[in-house]
């Protein structure tokens, strides 16, 4: 039931109101937590909210994180649209990231093509990583939620194995990581020296592409119909299974691309345990953005800012980074629950 996400004929305010309400409530909750745990709550909370806007560098960091979140948020969105819950974005990001580095280094291609090949390889890896859960859901009816999660526990282990045993590890680095990509094989930076990069434009372009597919193609129309009301879609002769499979693969590929952009655009290498939970944050971003293309961008920017702010808060005050994850969980409840109904139940009224 995606009904609340459909916004045809409804004002922007009506669409965004529940999101804004949920964000306000959860920020209030996090403020209460900050007050409870901190000696200097105001400083801490101000850094949490505003840290990303203190200077160009942190603003750039915010953009680079938002880039990844747009893609992983889009990955979750594409799945949800057709009724598939890809909870394993995290794993797809890991395999995508490693695959991109390997292909970028190994491909005997001129740099721009090698970068393209690396990004494509990340997408393919992500799609492969969701293959088994997708087939099990569509043809055997096994809930994808557990299988995608399991696959996502396997991915970091597999990538670290390949890193250590595949001759990929940089012997001079302390942390297990690959050697850095040569400068020509990196996505160009914007707002240097921050890690913001051209990946942002790729992500934005894909959001536009997603919007076009959703609103202007037959596939998008079918995706929406299958996700909203499978019985209607079936009656109209739409092949529910095929549409669902396509959404699964698109979702996996987008998460894989998010990983590839971490490698090729942000870190310029694959580092063990590089992700602060980009895959799970993608689910939150998709829900805050109410599965709308513009919503996903805004939610990713918001969460990018909070990630940067949380990092700064951790150094500048006594409140740890983990506040971000608490907030993330709270937001999931508030975004998917019916706040209006709770209000009515608790306080009476209409």
């Amino acid at each position, binding site marked *: 039931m995606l*009904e609340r996400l459909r916004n045809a004929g409804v004002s922007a305010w009506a669409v965004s109101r529940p999101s804004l309400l949920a964000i306000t409530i959860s920020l209030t909750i996090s403020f209460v937590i900050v007050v409870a745990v901190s000696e200097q709550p105001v400083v801490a909370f101000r850094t949490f909210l505003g840290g990303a806007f203190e200077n160009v560098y942190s603003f750039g960091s915010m953009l680079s994180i938002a880039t990844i979140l747009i893609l992983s948020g889009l990955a979750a969105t594409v799945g949800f649209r057709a009724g598939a819950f890809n909870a394993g974005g995290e794993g797809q990001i890991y395999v995508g990231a490693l695959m991109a580095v390997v292909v970028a280094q190994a491909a005997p291609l001129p740099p721009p093509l090698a970068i393209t090949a690396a990004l494509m390889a990340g997408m393919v890896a992500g799609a492969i990583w969701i293959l088994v859960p997708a087939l099990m859901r569509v043809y055997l009816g096994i809930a994808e939620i557990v299988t995608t999660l399991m696959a996502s526990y396997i991915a970091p282990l597999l990538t670290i194995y390949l890193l250590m045993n595949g001759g990929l590890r940089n012997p001079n680095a302390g942390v297990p990581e690959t050697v850095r990509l040569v400068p020509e094989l990196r996505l160009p930076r914007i707002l240097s020296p921050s890690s913001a990069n051209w990946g942002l434009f790729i992500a934005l372009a894909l959001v536009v592409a997603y919007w076009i597919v959703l609103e202007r193609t037959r596939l998008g129309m079918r995706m929406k119909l299958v996700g909203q009301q499978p019985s209607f879609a079936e009656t109209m002769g739409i092949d529910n299974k095929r549409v669902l499979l396509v959404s699964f693969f698109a979702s996996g590929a987008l998460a894989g691309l998010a990983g590839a952009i971490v490698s090729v655009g942000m870190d310029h290498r694959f580092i063990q345990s590089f992700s602060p939970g980009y895959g799970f944050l993608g689910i939150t971003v998709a829900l805050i953005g109410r599965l709308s293309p513009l919503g996903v961008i805004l939610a990713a920017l918001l969460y990018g800012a909070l990630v940067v702010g949380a990092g700064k808060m951790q150094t500048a005050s006594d409140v740890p980074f983990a506040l971000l994850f608490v907030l993330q*969980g709270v937001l999931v409840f508030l975004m998917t629950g019916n706040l209006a109904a709770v209000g009515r139940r608790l306080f009476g009224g209409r």
Partner: protein
Amino acid sequence: MFGLDTFIATAVSASAPIVATAVGGAFAERARCTNIGMEGMMLMGAFTALSVSVISGSAWLGLLAGIAVGALGGVFLSVAVHLLTCDIIIAGIGFNMMVSGVTLLLIDVFHGESGTWAPTRPPLLPRIDLGAYADTPLIGLFLHGQSVLVLVILAVVVLAWIVESRSRFGRHIRAVGDNLEAVVAAGLNPTVLRTTTLAISGATAGLGGSFLAISALGVFAADMSGGLGFIALAAVIFAGASVVRSALVAVLFGLSVAFATQFQSSGLPVQFVLMTPYVATILGLLLVGVRRRSSGNPPIINPTSPIQH
């Protein structure tokens, strides 16, 4: 060299937390409350058990606290589902995210640690010492040197089995899961029943989590539950939500870990050992799907609903 005693010891300690969690999970699943939040409830249980043990100096108090907090987690999830009307799957995922954040936050705030908290000389639950009977075949092999929690968990399995098969409550939760109308017609309250099953599931997940924290090492690590809650859920699905069968399947997943550990000494890379339970879980679910398909029960395509009206 294939040491049977180490193999069994590994199998028992790998199985115990999954078994505990799966037993409660079977109750929730029976009542059609798929509890994805068991992962977070384990984590909560682990953290609380260790904290209370350290503060009170008693690992037994820690255990009780771990179980109680897990149960509270179940109630919390039930409130999200019944009052806030969240989809239970998505609420469960949100719950896990939240718990993982809260535990990280708390070990940082209280212990100044990021990610792992290893208190010095934490109180631990006693180990089973069979003394002269340590070499008894079977019993000695399975129990000697294990945490007493293994016994507690065995007792929970038996108790859960009795509740499931003999008690009024066991019948009521089966009714909730199988025919809601029958429950209402019988004058029972389905919301209360479901909340209770989620609380039970939370309690046993808290027990499983406590096993991780205060049976052997006395350490808490961020996300130390490592997907065991999801694996327990898979065991429940595999077992068709029957208590005893869920426990047995959970043991199978534990055995897979023991096998992999054995192979480590013969050269299996550690990463592959670590991924064994996850792979085993996917294979297990694959088996469920194939079995269901061949028995003619067609799979249902039912979309997960992230945001509802």
